[in-house]
């Protein structure tokens, strides 16, 4: 990467795997679990968070010297809330049905710990360009897990991907269903999201011994 120095590139690539916001930093779990029953909703959520993180980190980083530290949480919340309102209004205009299914969870991006966590840990101490990279990196790391969970839950739960019937038609018994395959409706329910994320953590940590916790 000619544009980025090695240090800057690490800001983007680190959160991708070894310092993933969801599986390692334990930030932003709520939305990761609640809206992942469909792949489409997961993608929209990932993109929304990418926008809020990228812009928010830059704004906070630019304002970092004029925010008094005592009221910084309120100041941060107001910045995020403004950005989330923009996302919400855009979604309502462009994809009304989807914004209905996401419902309160778009609003909950405000209190998504990922955003506040990165503001506190990074944007308050670094310049705008590095903060921007950090924001993008973390949002992508978050999005990858979200899309992964959404992919498995939709595929195993309803046999579709983005609404397309990839495994055949369950009513007319085509494709896999002709062989007696059944959808696992349980994957669509809330508890399975937790278990899928648990399994992702399991796989990630068994591939990288350094990440294993003591207890």
């Amino acid at each position: 990467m000619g544009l980025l120095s090695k240090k800057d590139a690490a800001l983007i690539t680190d959160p991708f795997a070894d310092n993933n916001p969801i599986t390692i930093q334990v930030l932003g779990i709520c939305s990761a679990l609640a809206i992942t029953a469909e792949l489409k909703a997961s993608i929209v959520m990932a993109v929304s968070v990418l926008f809020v993180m990228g812009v928010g980190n830059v704004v906070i980083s630019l304002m970092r010297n004029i925010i008094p530290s005592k009221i910084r949480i309120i100041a941060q919340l107001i910045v995020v809330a403004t950005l989330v309102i923009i996302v919400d209004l855009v979604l309502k205009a462009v994809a009304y049905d989807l914004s209905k299914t996401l419902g309160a969870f778009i609003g909950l991006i405000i209190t998504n710990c990922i955003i506040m966590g990165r503001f506190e840990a990074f944007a308050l101490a670094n310049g705008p360009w590095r903060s921007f990279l950090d924001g993008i990196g973390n949002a992508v790391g978050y999005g990858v897990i979200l899309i992964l969970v959404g992919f498995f839950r939709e595929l195993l739960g309803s046999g579709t991907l983005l609404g397309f019937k990839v495994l055949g038609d369950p009513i007319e018994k085509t494709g896999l269903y002709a062989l007696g395959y059944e959808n696992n409706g349980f994957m669509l329910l809330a508890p399975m999201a937790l278990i899928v994320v648990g399994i992702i953590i399991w796989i990630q940590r068994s591939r990288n011994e350094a990440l294993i916790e003591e207890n």
Partner: protein
Amino acid sequence: MEHLELFFKSIFIDNMVFATFLGMCSYLAVSKKVTTAVGLGAAVIFVLMVTVPLNWLLDQYILQPGALKWLGVEYAAYDLSFLSFILFIATIATMVQLVEIIVEKFSPSLYNSLGIFLPLIAVNCAILGGSLFMQSREIPTLGLALTYGVGSGIGWFLAILAIAAIREKIRYSNIPAPLRGLGITFIVTGLMAIGFMSFGGMLTGGEEEAKAEEKTAIETPVEEKKIEEATKEVKEEVAVNTKEIK
């Protein structure tokens, strides 16, 4: 009755952690010890109790379409609902700060035990989630909003208490190394969520049973009367018989 129903519904059926995954971050981060979990849980109940009714008032008198009618006819067409995120979060952040100051002044011991958790609560999704669900579920009265706030707070408290207790015990188990810590907590929470799903039919099932009980309740007095009459007759007969013997 309405209050009781909403109360139990928000604790068990719509449990914040197990049904909607709200406040998961602090749920996972602060559940290593039971004592700290209790402190955070208590703080969440308290803050939800204050902020949900407050945000209900804001929603009802400022944000909803036509809510500004009390200012005059010309304001009746205003729809400020797009401001709800910013107003809710501002209320929550201010209330948390205010609660912190008040608790510090009047109950230093409680302040010390809640300590670090109070300021963190402003960014706990459970709190904002409480207000947003209150808005999207269209809770009709202030009293019900209060019930909803307290109920969902208690639900969250129960969840974090349970997982903290489990995590304290799980330390002695032989878990596969990559699953230790976060991984097993996720899976245990998933299993607990499956358990909580069984509360799902609690309210609908209850109504049908209640009706059936009423019907039998109406029938029983008639039967009791018959039995009473029958016993009276028997007693009289016995009395007559004993007299004859004498």
